[in-house]
């Protein structure tokens, strides 16, 4: 006999990621979001650019500063919360999504952000990441991917290319890397995006969309570690090469790239996969138009596979997928309300007494 399921009530839930969070009384500045702690990343670290961008962006959210919380795990990027004058928790390795899940579920009035890295999120914390994504708790996860372990001084990470020579792999690493976007899509994430530490405009744009999305938003940020993995993203950053390397994804736009937009993505009718082609008059009308809102993640996944697994010479950048799906925390709170609605507010004396009692007379 199979276990019965129940149809959950039609969610009458907010679609706005910031719904229920109190708005700031007055316009705020990036400075107000900057804590008094001295930033201690290595000179030239990509984390600085992301921090600046986030400090610059948070006032635009228009939320009360005290209702914003950053939760991080362990790793270089996980020091992030200390540098923001919001509430914050620098927790333990890999567990930030779990901690943030409890926080977001019990507090609908908080804007919850997770800061994590490729080791933190994809290695030790892989389980929490995929489950946060499938649950769709309303929070934004910033995954700083530098494709290396920085804080522990340079071992290969779960996103390092095969054959990576590091202190722990002098003869080259053996394991196939994760593609974080493919992984997130496989975990049925409702919002999946990729951006680059040094592209402040793009980064800020993606953050805005991520925050506005109700549910878990996963943002992979390519982040350079000049100390242990310098230049990992040079091909997609260098003005001389980047136009050939970056495939920009813009919802509703044909997916084209190259200095003159001469490349495009088309579907191979034989295999169903997505392939880059030289655009010609013959195939122009076959160039895919990016649909981030498609319910079916197949295309988004196929596009994510165009990311180089080895040295990064090509990567789609932008919002791969953004679909509406009820957020776990909203549903969990709704169940509490429903229970009160049907049973009334709990009466402790009644509960303790129960139905099967007997009385001993004095």
């Amino acid at each position, binding site marked *: 006999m199979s276990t019965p399921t129940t149809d959950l009530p039609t969610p009458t839930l907010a679609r706005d990621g910031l719904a229920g969070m109190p708005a700031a009384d007055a316009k705020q500045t990036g400075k107000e979001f900057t*804590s008094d*702690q001295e930033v201690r990343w290595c000179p030239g670290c990509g984390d600085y650019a992301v921090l600046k961008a986030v400090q610059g962006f948070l006032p635009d959210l228009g939320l*009360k*500063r*005290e*209702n*914003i*919380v950053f*939760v991080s795990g*362990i790793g270089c990027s996980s020091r992030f*919360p*200390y540098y923001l*004058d*919001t*509430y*914050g*928790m*620098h*927790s*333990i390795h890999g*567990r930030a999504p*779990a*901690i*943030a*899940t*409890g*926080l*977001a*579920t*019990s*507090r609908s*009035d*908080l804007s919850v952000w997770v800061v994590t890295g490729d080791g933190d999120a994809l290695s030790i914390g892989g*389980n*929490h990441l995929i*489950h946060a994504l499938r649950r769709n708790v309303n929070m934004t996860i910033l995954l700083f991917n530098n494709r290396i372990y920085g804080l522990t001084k340079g071992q290969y990470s779960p996103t390092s290319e095969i054959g990576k020579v590091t202190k722990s792999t002098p003869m080259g690493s053996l394991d196939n890397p994760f593609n974080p976007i493919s992984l997130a899509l496989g975990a049925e994430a409702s919002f999946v995006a990729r951006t680059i530490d040094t592209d402040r405009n793009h980064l800020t744009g993606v953050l805005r969309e991520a925050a506005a999305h109700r549910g878990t938003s996963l943002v992979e940020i390519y982040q350079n570690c000049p100390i242990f993995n310098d230049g990992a993203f040079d091909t997609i950053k260098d003005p001389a090469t980047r136009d050939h390397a970056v495939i920009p994804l813009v919802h509703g736009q044909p997916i084209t790239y190259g200095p003159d937009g001469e490349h495009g993505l088309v579907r191979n009718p034989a295999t169903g996969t997505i392939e880059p082609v030289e655009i010609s008059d013959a195939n122009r009308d076959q160039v895919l138009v990016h649909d981030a809102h498609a319910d079916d993640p197949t295309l988004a996944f196929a596009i994510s596979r165009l990311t180089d697994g080895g040295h990064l010479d090509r990567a789609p950048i932008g919002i791969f997928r953004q679909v509406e799906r009820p957020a776990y925390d909203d549903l*969990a*709170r709704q*169940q*509490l309300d*429903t*229970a*009160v609605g*049907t*049973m*009334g*507010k*709990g009466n*402790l*004396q009644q*509960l*303790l*007494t*129960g139905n*099967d*009692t*007997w*009385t*001993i007379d*004095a």
Partner: protein
Amino acid sequence: MKGHHFRDDAQKGRALASESKQVEKLDRVVIRFAGDSGDGMQLTGDRFTQETAAFGNDLSTLPNFPAEIRAPQGTLPGVSSFQVHFADHDILTPGDRPDVLVAMNPAALAANIKDLRPGGIVIVDSHDFTKRNLAKAGYDTSPLDDDSLADYQVHPLDLTGMTVDAVADFGLGRKDAARSKNMFALGLVSWMYGRPTDATLAYLESKFASKPAIRDANVAAFKAGWYFGETTEAFAVSYEIAPAPMASGRYRNITGNTALAYGIIASGQQSGLPVFLGAYPITPASDILHELSKHKHFGVTTFQAEDEIAGIGAALGASFGGALGVTTTSGPGISLKSETIGLAVMLELPLVIVDVQRGGPSTGLPTKTEQSDLLQAMFGRNGEAPLPVIAPQSPADCFDAAVEAARIAVTYRTPVMLLSDGYLANGSEPWSIPDVDALPRIEPAFATLPADGAEFLPYARDPETHAPAWAPPGVAGLEHRVGGIEKADGTGNISYDPANHDRMVRNRAAKVARVADTIPDLVVDDPSGEARVLVLGWGSTYGPIGAGVRAARAQGIDVAHTHLRHIHPFPRNLGKVLRSYDHVIVPEMNLGQLALLLRAEFLVDVHGYDKVTGMPFGSEELAEVIAQAVKSIDTHRLENDR
């Protein structure tokens, strides 16, 4: 058939009406229902318990079931049992040895017969004593046909056949019809001990309301069992166990896990905090998750996490957000949660961690009881990471212990470990239902804005509790960052300063030590005042030790008993108590973990009495240990006097 000793006076052609049968008065009885996992023995035991509670006897129960959900049918590993002890006086344990064994198949008989008291009653379903079933249970020949059961009063009854006959009208297949045989057995035993039946009939009506044929079959089988007892010559005697004198008030029966869940709900109500449970299913703790999931209208959120780590992580996240964070698990889960417990110690956030202990190490004995996580609770983390540890002493006491755990957690902003175990979790006893108005209030000390625009110091300490204030997000001016890296005293910012670290480690330890300020002194039970031997226990051994002490006193032995609710920190007078006796016995269901702590803390040479069989101590066994100890100090004294 050999081995049957029907009572003479009852055998001779008496009329079959019940009023004409003899009624024998007893002061206490222990019954064990045993059968295959699929035979519904837990339900049968549970119903008998409810009837007994309604009748007004004092009672104590001990379910015992295999780890496998359905081990192969008819085999020894598949045997499930439920023991209930009830009496006309107050009792402390489910009883050492059953007086009555109901065995639904050969395996159930084989697995349990050695525990039965000589002369005890055995009721078996003879229908199941087939060659095949006998072989599965390891019998070469049927024990019903040889004299291996000569020491007992054996009633081989075709329970299956009689049940099938009784439910013939309801159109069930033979297999479904036979499933009601547990109710037939319950009806029979209910008749034997004069149990009130209304509640069971009402229960069956409501449980199977949507399946009329099954409902009617169960009711019919139950009634048939009752009438069979009343009419058959096989049972010439029924028994009467008068209600026990109990303090006046309203009672219900309750298991440890239910009481613990209610304690958590009450803690939320008494503190005004929403409750957030983060948990991963694990035996024998899952019932707390199930119970709490039913009570969302009390503002209780339950989160079934992807693993043990996420369970406690989410609970800690909720605590950071100002909820009462709770996580429930068993020993293996505590191992996984250790790092997060350390973080909770470091952050100084309230968190209730429930460990329903089971046999270990590793997967160990999932459905059996043990107290072997004490040292893990005390020390199972990296660094100096002290936290308060408390333990309930009986199933109903799990309620008070949960409220106490929450009180300490919230008052002292610390994770608190609550050590229940499998014996308490599944066992049950009557509970004097508390008056909600008399429950203690729990006052969370939330941080407020410092006066005069002074800087908010999240780790400034309360002069009394030494705890920092609780500052959940959402309050302007109190923005701050917490983390697992050592924090600067006061501000909570990262600090690697050696002197600061030394101070913070001591601060956290001092805070936990201060919990002792609010712990009542230990009370020693020593009625004669002459005792030189003290028995000291903690947790679920309370009942067995109490019963053992009573048994020893009944033999004229002077012995004192005291029991610890708070294991860390200890009550302030514990050292004095220990030193007041010549000999201290510490029975534990581990290899001497509390004994180790006592020796380390007080330099007192306590004597451990340890057992890890997965079952609670027997009272007779402990009485013997006490007698030996008294004898040894008498001998010692004699030798010294010489």
